[in-house]
Each structure stands twice: as C-alpha cells, then as structure tokens.
C-alpha cells in the first residue's frame, strides 16, 4: 500500500521535475546560459492560467492555453531583456559574461516574481484542473489529475525528443549545442537557433508551471525553490545532458517522496542535497555530464 503510494506519487512528481529541468538543461546545452529566472517563468505561466480560468472564467482549456502563451512571452522577455544584451555587450569581458547573465536573469526573476505578487497577491493559487475526480489503483486513492500530469509530461518530453532527433530544425539545434561555429559555417543563422531554443524552453517551462499549479499549487514564494530544484537536478544529471536530467529528476523525485512518506516530511529535501554534495565531490561533472 505504502509502496504503491510512494511509487505513484513519486512518479508524478518526478515527471514534473523532469519536464521542468529539460528546458533548463536545453538552454544551457545550446547557448551556455543558466537561466535563474526559471522558477519565475513557471510560476508566471501557472498564475496566468489560474487568473484566466478562475478569475475571468474562460474554463480550464483556454486557461491552460493562456498560461502557455504567458510562458512563451516570459521566456522571450528573459532572452531579450536579460540575456541577449549581455551576450552582445562589448563592455563586459567574455570571461565575466557568465556571472553577468546569472545576476541579470536572477534580477529579472525577482522582478517577475514581485510583479506577480503585486498584481495577484502572494496567496497560493491552484489552477483549475483539466481532469477532475479520484481513481483507485492498487488500493491507492489518487487524484486523476496526478496521472494526467505524468502523461502530459512524458508526451511533452517525447515530442521534444522527436523534434530534436527527427526534424531539420531540431537537428540544427542539436548541432549548435555540439559546435556552434560549425553550424555557422554550414550557413545556419545562430541567432535564429537561439530563438527556437528559447521558444521550446518557454513552452516546456509554461506547461510544467501550469501542471505544477494544478497538481500542488503555486505562489510567488515558490519561485526560488523551483529554480533551485531545477538547477540541482540539472547539475546532478550533468549540465547540458537531457537524458541525464531525466534520470536525475527521477532520483530526486523518489528520494524526496520516499523520505517524506517513510521518515518525515520535514526531512524531505535533505537526502537529495546530501546526494548532490557527494556527487559534486566525487564526480563534479554530474552523473552523465561532459566537461
């Protein structure tokens, strides 16, 4: 009973972590950007879906679409406001661009978070679920929404895999993550690849945010923890490795769920943090990372 409960809950949470972390790692793999406004984009999409569905009464489907649109807009805003000006700046030395992008995306995340808090208050918001009701599997009563979350996450990840491996556009994105200069020599505009990646990222982060809002609820306070969890999953799996992030998301998700059920919810995040420290000492490039 407890075993199935952990298995099912852990699976849904891990799927959500995986989806959230995939976009984050994709951006890093292709353009070397660690986007610290990640949590703000997820929360922004969720709050937009919540406001549209609950406050303006457009229903859960239109609400989710508006949420995805918000994810898109926020991702592009992050790119054009906090990332591109620094990448193109001549006043900032190349070696220092990393810390500047980190600081700028962090600030942009705080700005987004505060704007959400100002417009929609700090209260926790639960997005109107698309699938309602409860179902019992293996004697475990679980909201249907939890299964829905896991399915959507895996469909989205599957679509991403198809896009990257089977389409021309996706293949050029893949190539850019391996060798940006080589792609330029083949006559592909690097800046248009960046735009594609940020669009994919906005979609993934938006969907992940809305699902999180339906599943656990969000508030402007979740921005920091969300960024931190995506960051640690991605580093655990190896920066830039999508499959590594997926595995790491499941490791972290099950460690957290298992600890919460078997020991105490108060210790929830500790084993995952300990694992992260051990991995950082023994294998700094992460489980599946390249240096």
């Amino acid at each position, binding site marked *: 009973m407890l075993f199935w409960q952990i298995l099912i809950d852990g699976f849904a949470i891990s799927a959500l972590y995986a989806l959230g972390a995939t976009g984050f790692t994709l951006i890093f793999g292709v353009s070397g950007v*660690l986007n610290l406004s990640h949590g703000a984009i997820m929360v922004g999409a969720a709050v937009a879906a919540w406001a549209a569905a609950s406050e303006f009464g457009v229903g859960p489907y239109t609400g989710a679409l508006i949420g995805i649109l918000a994810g898109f807009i926020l991702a592009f805003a992050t790119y054009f*406001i*906090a990332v591109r*000006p*620094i990448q193109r*700046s001549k*006043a*900032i030395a190349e*070696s*220092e661009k*990393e*810390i*500047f992008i*980190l*600081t*700028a995306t*962090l*600030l*942009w995340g*705080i*700005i987004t978070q*505060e*704007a959400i*808090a*100002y417009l929609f208050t700090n209260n926790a918001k639960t997005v109107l679920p698309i699938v309602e009701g409860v179902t019992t599997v293996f004697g475990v009563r679980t909201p249907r929404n939890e299964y829905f979350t896991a399915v959507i996450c895996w469909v989205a990840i599957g679509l991403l895999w198809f896009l990257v491996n089977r389409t021309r556009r996706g293949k050029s994105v893949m190539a850019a993550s391996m060798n940006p200069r080589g792609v330029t020599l083949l006559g592909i505009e690097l800046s248009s690849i960046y735009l594609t990646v940020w669009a994919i990222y906005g979609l993934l982060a938006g969907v992940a945010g809305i699902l999180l809002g339906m599943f656990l609820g969000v508030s402007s306070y979740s921005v*920091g923890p969300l960024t*931190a969890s995506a*960051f*640690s999953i991605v*580093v655990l799996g190896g*920066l830039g490795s999508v499959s590594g992030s997926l595995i790491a998301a499941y490791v972290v998700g099950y460690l957290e769920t298992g600890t919460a059920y078997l020991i105490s919810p*108060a*210790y929830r*995040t*500790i084993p995952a*943090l*300990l694992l*992260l*420290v051990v991995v*950082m*000492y023994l294998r*700094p*490039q992460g489980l599946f990372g390249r240096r």
Partner: protein
Amino acid sequence: MPNFVTSRLFWIGALTVIVALVLPTYVSGYVLGLLTVAYYTAVFAMSWDLLFGFAGEVNFGPTFLIGVGAYTAGILDAHFSPGLSIWLCIAAGALAAVVGGVVLALPALRVSGPYFGLTTLVAVLMLQNFIVVAAGLTGGEIGLAVPDVISIDAKTNYWIALGFMLVSGAILFGLSRSAIGLILQASGQDKIQAGALGFNVTKHKLAAFVVSAFFSGLAGALMVFYMGTASVSTFVDVGVGVQIIIAAVLGGRRTVIGAAIGAIFLIGMGELLRPLGELATLIVSVIALVVILFFPDGFLGIIRGGAKA
C-alpha cells in the same frame, strides 16, 4: 590621468567618512539603526567581492559563512550566557566561519564555474535545513534569542559598526591592491598560467577563502549581538545571499569599496521605497538590472567614467 582620478575618489571617500562620523549628532536613532545594518551588510558584500572579483570564484553561498559565524556566536551565548563574554562568542563565531571557509574551499580547488556555484548554494540549503531540524539547539524557524547585546545605545552600536566596516574595508582593500591581490586576480583569470609563473594558486585561493570567511563570520557574529536574535531569514536564507551578490555587482565588482557602496545603497533604497509596499523590491531590482546592463562596472564605474570625460 590616473592620479587625478584616484585623488578625486580619495576625496569623495574622505568626505563620506566625515559625513558618516558626524551623522549621529543630527539624525534619529531609527536611521542610525538602519545604517548599522547597512554597514554590516557592506562587510558581507566586500568579503564576497574578494572571493569573486579577485579569486574568480562564483560563490552563491555567502550566507553559509555568515550563518555559521552568526549561529556559532549566538548558540554559545545562549547556552553559556553569563559565564562567557560576548567577545569570546564573537571570536568563536569568526573562527567557526574560517573552518567553514576551508570546507567550502575544498570543492573550489577541484571544480569551477557553475559547478562550484551550485556547491556553495547547496551548502546554504544544508545549513538552513540543519538549523530548522536541530530546532532545540538553534531555535529553528522561529529564531534564536541571545540574552546579551553589545549595547542598547543606538549611537554606540553605530560607532562599532562604522569602525568595523572601515577597518575591515581598509584591510580587504589593502589586500586586494597588494601582491596577493594581483596573484589572486591572475589565478582567477588563468589558473594554469598563474601556476606556470610559479605562484602557488592553491595556497592563495585558500587564503582568499579564509580571509573572506573570517570577515563574513565576524560581521555575522557582531550583527547577532546588535539585533539580539539570530534567524534563518536574516542570516542564512538564499535571498540574503542574493542581495549581497547584487550589492557587490551593482557597486562595481573587483573594487571592494564598490561593494560597500552597493550594500548601503540597496538597504537605503529599500527603506526609502518602503511606503510603496510590494513595489519597493520591484523598483530596486529594476534599477539594479539597468545598472548591470548599461553600466557593467557599477556605480564606481560611473563615477570613474565621469571623471575621465
């Protein structure tokens, strides 16, 4: 004309110090209390700048060092209050922070860039979890009340904070302009080449961590005995660390003094905009983002640029 520039900066600095010295005669205790906190934060930011600006280590966890210093001092005082002088507690806090700095330095000597950044972030989260879980010792989420304070007089506290900031600022600035600072800068930019020139990179980086940890922990411990409490939200939270990093980058990184200017600016602005409520943080963040995007050298860069023109 570098001499002119430095002398101009020198005069601005001297004027600021004089204003800070005569301030207690004119302003209320409330403003003094605010500036006391700002001065301690300035020391946090300057210590961070020594690590990032010179040693090139992206430390996301300045609050790990601050928190270790603050809580060590606080716990010692709370448990052995009348028997143990607070100055001994403060010294123990600084010492514990140095030990923390060495622990933090070990991964830094192996990994770099975002990987090291994450290690420091994890260090903060672990400390935060430990404080909450070991609530019997640390006061948990409510915070730890310490029975003693340095002084209840706002002016005395102000003088101590100001003196402490000036002394540690002078030491950190002197260190950054010395040969050690140059070697650190070199090893931050190109570790291999600095090593090839015969400098012991490991030794210097370790020294930078120890010095940064010492001042962070000392400032944290002093601040505990100014506030009378130690809590996660004032000393350890990642948000506090973020504010320190923003202060250092905003004021002008690799300058030490800029970090102090940035910290005082951030705390002052936060207070001035307080009537706006939720919008205060928003506006401060927008200002910081604009400065970082358009004036990457920060406030000090703007002043210097003005002097050149």
